[in-house]
């Protein structure tokens, strides 16, 4: 019920490397603290010291065990809004509160227009929307829209908070609509993929799959000595060139 822009000038988004994510949650808490005073502030905490600690998070990290060539491996999976080209959370919005920016494709919620009907969270197949029970409005990842262009911040800080924090460098940020951008090249090189393309949401964010595990490639060792006595015979005259 809300229109998507005819065309977006840029497709800003995240590229998340599942090969290097160690599941440390640095992206999640950095996001939490920036956005707690950011565009959609606050990221309300419910019962923070009580029986059911929970709250609004724009970025959550899940850890799974998956089967890989007969072995189990652990995969850490950070999950946040994918800023879809064909965002059903926007088109379903009855008030225009959910919208996709024509300038950069970022999907945002205008809290003044949001009536808290939650249709968008039903529409999003990725579970990326977060309803603030206290404020009664929907919230979500803003791609730190209040950081990335903010000339009041040092240039180095003008990236999403999750990206700045990530200790293993598993998160990248840029224009995925520009095939020549670094992030697009990264996606190309590493076989980056979209989540659940069958849902036809055309997500912008990409995930890089775990690289094939490097296989050891060493010729087997050849035993030269069969125990200490033979070693003694072979090594007693060994020249070392000290």
């Amino acid at each position: 019920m809300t229109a998507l822009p005819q065309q977006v000038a840029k497709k800003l988004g995240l590229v998340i490397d599942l090969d290097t994510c160690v599941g440390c949650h640095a992206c999640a808490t950095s996001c939490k603290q920036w956005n707690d005073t950011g565009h959609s502030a606050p990221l309300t905490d419910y019962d923070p010291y009580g029986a059911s600690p929970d709250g609004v998070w724009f970025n959550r990290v899940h850890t799974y065990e998956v089967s890989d060539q007969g072995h189990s491996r652990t995969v850490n999976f950070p999950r946040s809004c994918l800023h879809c080209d064909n965002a059903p959370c926007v088109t379903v919005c009855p008030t225009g509160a959910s919208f996709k920016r024509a300038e950069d494709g970022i999907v945002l919620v205008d809290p003044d227009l949001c009536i808290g009907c939650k249709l968008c969270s039903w529409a999003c197949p990725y579970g990326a929307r977060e309803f603030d029970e206290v404020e009664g409005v929907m919230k979500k990842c803003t791609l730190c829209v209040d950081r990335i262009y903010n000339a009041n911040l040092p240039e180095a800080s003008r990236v999403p908070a999750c990206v700045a924090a990530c200790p293993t460098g598993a998160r990248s940020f840029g224009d995925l609509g520009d095939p020549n951008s670094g992030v697009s090249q990264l996606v190309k090189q590493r076989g980056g993929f979209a989540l659940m393309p069958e849902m036809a949401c055309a997500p912008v964010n990409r995930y890089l799959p775990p690289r094939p595990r490097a296989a050891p490639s060493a010729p087997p060792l050849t035993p030269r000595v069969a125990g200490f006595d033979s070693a003694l015979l072979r090594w007693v005259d060994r020249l070392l060139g000290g």
Partner: protein
Amino acid sequence: MPYFTANAQPTVELAPAAAAEVKTTTCYMCACRCGIKVHLQKGQVCYIEGNPEHPVNRGVLCAKGASGLMQHYSPARLSKPLLRVGPRGSGEFREIEWDEALGLAQDWLGAIRRRNPRELAFFTGRDQSQSFTGWWAQQFGTLNYAAHGGFCSVNMAAAGLYSIGGSFWEFGEPDWPHTRLFLLFGVAEDHASNPLKIGLGQLKARPGTRFVSINPVQTGYSAIADEWIGIRPGTDGLLVAALIHALLAAERIDWVYLARYTNAAWLVIDDPGAADDGLIARDAAGLPLCFDRLTQTLTPAGAAGLEPLLMGAVSLADERRAYPAFHHFAQRFLDPACAPAAVSERCGVPVATIERLAAELAEVAFEQTITVEVPWTDSAGRPHAGFVGRPVSMHAMRGISAHANGFETCRLIHALQMLLGSVDVPGGFRYKPPYPRPIPPAGSPAEPAAAGAPLTRPPLGFPRGPEYLLNDAAGNPLRLDKAFSWEYPLALHGMLQSVIHNAWQGDPYPIDTLFLYMANMGWNSSLNISQTLHYLTDRRADGEYRIPRIIYADAYYSETVPYADLILPDTTYLERWDGISLLDRPISDPDGAADAIRQPVVTPDRDVRPFQDVLLALGAQLGLPGMTLADGTARFPGGYAQYLTEHTRGNEQGPLAGWRGAQGEQSFRGPANPTQLQRYIDNGCFWRTELAPAQRYYRYANPAYLDYAVAAGFIGSAQPIVLELYSEILQKFQLAGRGHGTHQPPTHLRARVCENFDPLPRWQTAAQEPAPDYPLHAITQRPMHMYHSWGSQNAWLRQITARNALYVASTLGAELGLTDTDWVWIISPIGRVKAPVKLMHGLNHHTVWTWNAIGKRSGAWALAPDAPEASAGFVLNHLIAELLPPRADGYRYANADPVTGQAAWFDLRVRLEKCSATETHAASPCFEPLPARQPAPRARRDAAMLRGAPTGNHTAAHREYLGGSQQKPAKEQP
């Protein structure tokens, strides 16, 4: 048809005002000590980010660091000094003023100091100012001082310092830009966690590298390893011994490196029964001898141009026989008991995997050798065109550190590194300044002083033989924790885990006051919690507590607070000065020395004081030397900030190495600079100096570095540091156990000393050998987002993890008929704990594990009484005995390594029993709730109020950021 079109796109404020103020300081959410930038709005802390210029974290920040806000605003913060009025454990306190608190402490401690300073036991937990608190203990005159290393990592510190003059933990790291094969033993997620994560990210991005994780549990960094080896806990040393065996048998070792840089060629006296059997043969000047095959003579080892013998017998000048140290090493590890086939089943690692790993180590070390093209000359005068590197690196931390056999396991890893020639070479393990240090480092433990007098040295040190131990004439321990006694001779970090028991028992002697700082000994930092609480509350026949007085300093209402008599409330880390000193645990990196400060970013809104200020004030009131002027007034009325600037020791060294001298023109040494702290603040609260390229490798034998290190005050002499494949010092203890020398163990400890001191590393079974009734290993780890951050009370972090489960291998679960909906009793010889089950594939079959320290005691940490941490969370501490089963005569040793005193909390063995349907869904054991305290003021902040005002000052361009290839250079000093 849409109702709303893109034309109606709401406007968005793209450039809210930046924080009114941004201050730099150092994080304290764990032991990593990253640089942070703290944003302030309306005087309140509103955002914390990594400092891009800081050498430790280069701009990144972990989940803990980014949750520091909630630690700072925690309602569990203490707000005023407290004096106990009810019985211990009741939590009944009276709020008192600081004058009264300090007066009481002065009365108690003053009397002790006049009477017998050892009656004060001062232990400082997760203290980051140990060079200061140790100095305070020294001035007070008590031997009974240490931090928490006894249950943390002392075995690995000792193993490193007594073999390669450095150690893992945050004291060294892989040469990330060059390493090709990286072996990680266990978890490494607290100390240096961000440098490790940055390094792993770099490693993963570089083609041709492999990362092998050896860990019973496939979590954390294991998730991104190229290979995970799910080893059985406590058998890493056996695996390493088999790798050594395979490399020796294939002659794939670095012979030249061993001969030049280790003591492999040193001759070991072979004279069974003699007082010097197993010691190093030396010349008249005391220099170690080798046998030069070119000249067929005994000659001092280490000179260039020798052809030292590594195997076979030689005759010494007195006609006695000797063998090179390597001869003994080869004899031990070529033994069939070390063969892969002999260890495979015990380790749970297939023979083929061990043999393949050995082949890979050899291939990478010797066929993929790399050279950093920087000319250098070694200590023997040999010129080298470049630094030749074996690009095999290893790192190890938790896991190995918590087993009683971890000292030997870690020595085995260091031996493997020496065998491959991969210590401080390109692509190998690299030291961080001020390491390497002589083996062992200078300074022995302080001896007792007379009442009222200071100790002549700091309490902790490095024994070089039995004569440096702290025993009385009868051979009994002089320290309360029995560190440096015949029971735990190399307990270099003390034994905090034994202090409460020993004080209660009066063994070796009763004390008066237990003074603790930042150590949650009433809960997750103690083994056998209920027994520990008994020790804290037990009374003598006359009604007096058996531990008469307990003073506790901490910032938060932990489980320990209600058990103390006097509480000295500390500040949060954003409200204090601190020095991250090279005299302490440095934040250097392999390419440069660094130190840092914390500055108060905000002023406390409670009646609390920084603990270091309190210690200085108390020291002045007690008239302690160094803290008092001749007229009796305080030496440091400006508190810790003044101490950091003005305190000097040695040759014009101080807590901070940067900007010394009147104009701030000197580094490392120099007179105090009154503007030093401001210089640090101006530089982002850290200081770093870069090593020259020729000073960065082979530092144990690199005069360009060693001379620098002498000038910097890291070491006393530029003599090369010879790595010790064979430890003569450990042999000295062995000989004492056999009845040689002036200092011998009492009869009842001789066998223990002989069993446990071996000049060569070897694998040992755990102290608690498995009883058939307890077939499973039970281990713990902290979640990466909570490691070392003391507190799942953090409002954000507990939203990620507020409850824990017992993880069981799915294969074991199938055997035991367990599913994810079951609860089990985890049963050890001393108790049982109830837990929900979670099945997991990536887990050693014989091992169960859980997240540590999630379980909390109801009422503590300002959590609601029904918080899941208390109602469903559990800790395994209840199952771990603090003492080993009694000896034949009833005496009980600590559950610890008999060499280093390391607490053996990973040696826990358990069995599982499925709970009945009526038993599920409630934690057990359940302790009486602690009385809740009034939350600290202003615990919650109004986040929306802190949003920046609109400015319209935005740019059109976005900035691209590529994580994998990002360049994050640390700022270099001119």
